[in-house]
């Protein structure tokens, strides 16, 4: 499956090795890591929650769009769910192609669209003990729109 959710830690080395292909001259990967601060606030840990059935459908559509728009050999995306500590791998995208331009463009397309369209939500735990669902703040909350 080109798009998957994983409740367990992602082994990016194994994923990348699985893309090995002597017809490909380029492999571009994106890793999203849990950062220790967001919008200036110290972050302690994260929870990702997914609407799995629709997330997998929408993720598969995004990968299919990338394969249609760009000349790629293969493309995969895996997104973590559950509780993640600082530094953990939250999302991995890997694309192989004959030429590097297509690999870069497709990798970026997939992560940009996944962040905008796939029903996955991120709850940040702050060093202060407070928590926030990212992008879900309303007037009166302190947290605004976030981007990684």
């Amino acid at each position: 499956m080109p798009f998957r959710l994983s409740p367990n830690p992602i082994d990016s080395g194994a994923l990348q090795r699985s893309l090995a292909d002597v017809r490909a001259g380029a492999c571009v990967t994106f890793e999203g890591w849990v950062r220790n601060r967001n919008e200036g606030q110290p972050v302690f840990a994260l929870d990702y929650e997914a609407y799995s059935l629709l997330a997998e459908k929408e993720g598969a559509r995004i990968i299919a769009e990338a394969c249609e728009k760009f000349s790629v050999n293969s493309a995969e995306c895996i997104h973590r769910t559950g509780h993640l500590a600082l530094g953990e791998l939250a999302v991995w995208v890997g694309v192989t192609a004959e030429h590097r331009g297509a690999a870069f463009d497709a990798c970026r397309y997939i992560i940009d669209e996944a962040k905008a369209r796939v029903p996955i939500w991120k709850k940040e735990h702050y060093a202060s003990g407070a928590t926030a669902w990212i992008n879900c703040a309303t007037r009166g909350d302190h947290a605004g729109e976030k981007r990684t």
Partner: protein
Amino acid sequence: MTTLTVQYFAILREQRGLAQEKLSTAATTPAALYEELRARHGFTLPADRVRAAVNDEFVSATATLRDGDRVVFIPPVAGG
């Protein structure tokens, strides 16, 4: 009245205090149903920031709800 299953995720799950419920409603669209539930449960997200899915596909806010549908309201996403 239609009988629907509503699933909640993330901030809506926490504000509702449960992940799923069956309910009967006079609402015939996701937009109307969200306003009804928002008034009842005090959801903080305004309707224009929530998308709807029915039976695991995105639908418009004015789609027609049918008996037995499973409805999900989707807060702004934040993967990655």
